[in-house]
């Protein structure tokens, strides 16, 4: 039972990060129906920039939380700039082009960002300095760390902030209007280009924070970390219903839990010895014959993505049909 609770806690932490990244996908998709393929790389850049700052300040004797905050404070504007530049140079000129075109430039941008990051930060796995002291609390027989509580709290706060922005401010209203119909929004006096740029910038800012969180949570960062993280976050966005902001939040948390539980239990569930099916030689004396171990963890997000696309393409909370032309 405590293993179960433990996996749920780990899953929720990871899921909260997925949700924040998924928001970046879903906001952009909701407004211009583009899968911003390079969003995962923005998250990676956020992690890398904060790594550099935290590394430089680690020895300065500042309180650890302040160091991480300064790191995030530097990563956010850098990522926002990257997000804006991306929209301006690679996507805006193609807004009226056929759908395949911006998708292909997005792949190009993603490769460029990845390899520029490799030039700056090398191809090695970078170890985040562990400056935040490890405090653990016990909850229902499972342990939860201070970092996990911080991540969960921050993510919830950001989601609430975003919801306020989208549903309570002028910019949010303009964003929703543009998402519904850009032509009419323009007629109503909405500066559509500015709204779209703002969407990219906000998504990139969220991505930067997610990058810092992933870095501090796992303790490592590498220039390739963006693609798999981006893929999972996209799966989360589709699970919740792409283009739907509350959907991305729910989808992210759910995907994190599914992944954690899947990785925690798949080894036991696919142990043929449990069912008396394994070869006698390996099963003797309580041995195991495990078909799929926890090293298949990265497969779950993909399986979830396929299942959602087959059975409910509009996602859990989405109303729009997935194949709207």
């Amino acid at each position, binding site marked *: 039972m405590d293993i179960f609770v433990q996996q749920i806690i780990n899953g929720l932490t990871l899921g909260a990060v997925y949700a924040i990244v998924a928001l970046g996908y879903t906001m952009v998709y909701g407004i211009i129906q*583009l*899968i911003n*393929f390079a969003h995962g790389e923005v998250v990676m850049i956020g992690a890398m920039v904060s790594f550099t700052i935290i590394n430089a300040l680690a020895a300065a004797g500042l309180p650890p939380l302040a160091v991480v905050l300064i790191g995030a404070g530097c990563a956010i504007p850098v990522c926002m700039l990257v997000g804006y530049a991306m929209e301006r*140079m*690679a996507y805006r*000129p*193609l807004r*009226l*082009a*056929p*759908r*395949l*075109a*911006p*998708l*292909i*430039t997005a*792949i*190009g*941008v*993603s*490769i*460029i960002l*990845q*390899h*520029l990051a*490799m*030039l700056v930060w090398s191809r090695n796995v970078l170890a985040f300095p562990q400056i935040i002291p490890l405090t653990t609390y016990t909850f229902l027989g499972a342990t939860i760390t201070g970092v996990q509580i911080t991540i969960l709290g921050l993510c919830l706060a950001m989601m609430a902030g975003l919801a306020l922005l989208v549903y309570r401010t002028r910019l949010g209203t303009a964003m929703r209007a543009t998402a519904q119909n850009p*032509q009419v929004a323009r007629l109503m006096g909405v500066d559509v280009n500015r709204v779209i740029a703002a969407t990219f910038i906000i998504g990139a800012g969220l991505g930067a924070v997610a990058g810092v969180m992933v870095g501090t949570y796992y303790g490592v960062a590498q220039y390739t970390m963006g*693609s*798999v993280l981006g*893929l999972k976050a*996209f*799966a989360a966005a*589709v699970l919740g219903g792409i283009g739907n902001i509350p959907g991305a939040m729910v989808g992210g948390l759910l995907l994190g839990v599914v992944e954690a539980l899947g990785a925690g239990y798949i080894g036991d569930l696919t142990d043929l010895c449990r069912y008396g099916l394994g070869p006698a030689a*390996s099963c003797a004396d309580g041995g195991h*014959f*495990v*078909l*799929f*171990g926890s*090293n*298949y963890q*990265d*497969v779950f*997000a*993909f399986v979830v*993505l*396929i299942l959602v*696309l*087959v059975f409910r*393409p509009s996602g859990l909370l989405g109303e729009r049909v*997935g*194949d*709207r*032309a």
Partner: protein
Amino acid sequence: MKKNRRALWAGVALIALTLLLLPFALSQAGTAWVRIANIALLYVLLALGLNIVVGFAGLLDLGYVAFYAVGAYVYALLASPHFGLHLPFWVILPIGAAVAALFGVMLGAPTLKLRGDYLAIVTLGFGEIVRIFLNNLSQPVNITRGPQGITGIDPVRIGGIDFSRSDSVLGVVLSGPMKYYYLLLGLMLVIILINVRLQNSRIGRAWEAIREDEIAARAMGIDTTGMKLLAFAMGASFGGVAGGMFAAIQGFISPESFVLVESVMVVSMVVLGGMGNIAGVILGAVLLAFVPEILRWTVEPAQQALFGKMLIEPEVIRMLIFGLALVLVMLFRPAGLLPSAVRKRELTQERAP
């Protein structure tokens, strides 16, 4: 008109002669160059296969390397000491093509009913999944030998000819890589022929209709899902054939050869050359396949001379060039270097709101 046709035939004859004599010229510079030409031909095969999916049917497949991997592993498992199987080349290649096509259908079936961009992401994920499986299927039963890869793969043997050794025919010495060159050239011709025939067939026109406007195509009575699945399966099977050749030529394969970067590279080739145009795709594949070699001969010495050491690895420059090529081609020449007529019309037209 008659004069034109004569000029055309003269051109074809010239290209054919060049292609036939190329390995002899290259082997003067070293056998390594023949090997490089072989790799370029493999990329041409891959790009032609992907062109069916991306160029003809307009479906962006970012996990194409998965089919390449499937073909390579089918060949490796059926012709290596790992399982002790040594089936002949002409038995394995169709099996590899069929298995790859099956994977294509498996992947396409759930996603093809949806819009194209979903397909792109799902195929990307699929490519990663195949690699994860290849890396981990060494336990509990050792199928793929995991990250170690499979070694000692049989070279191609047709009749009494062993493609790994040198032979002399009529006093002319043919090295192993040169024989593979001619085999690949033959395969390429077959695939080009299939491509051309497909493009002008009922199926090819159906693909084109789907690419242009799927709803209109369905209204015209085209079975859009079936046709898209067919494109996917055919593209995948060509990838499988190329994979089998890759395994035979290298003699060793591991999951490391089938990373996402390879998929991106093939997509870049198709996009740069001109989606849907067979000649353009071949041009794109040859150009980009030689980029790493050109960089090795220019960038490395230039950096050594300027800075006294290597600052930027050629590998990184290569990837930056691919990324930039994708962005710049889409921005300034969306139909590619050699655009196909239909594609050009489609890409320069604005999307209806």
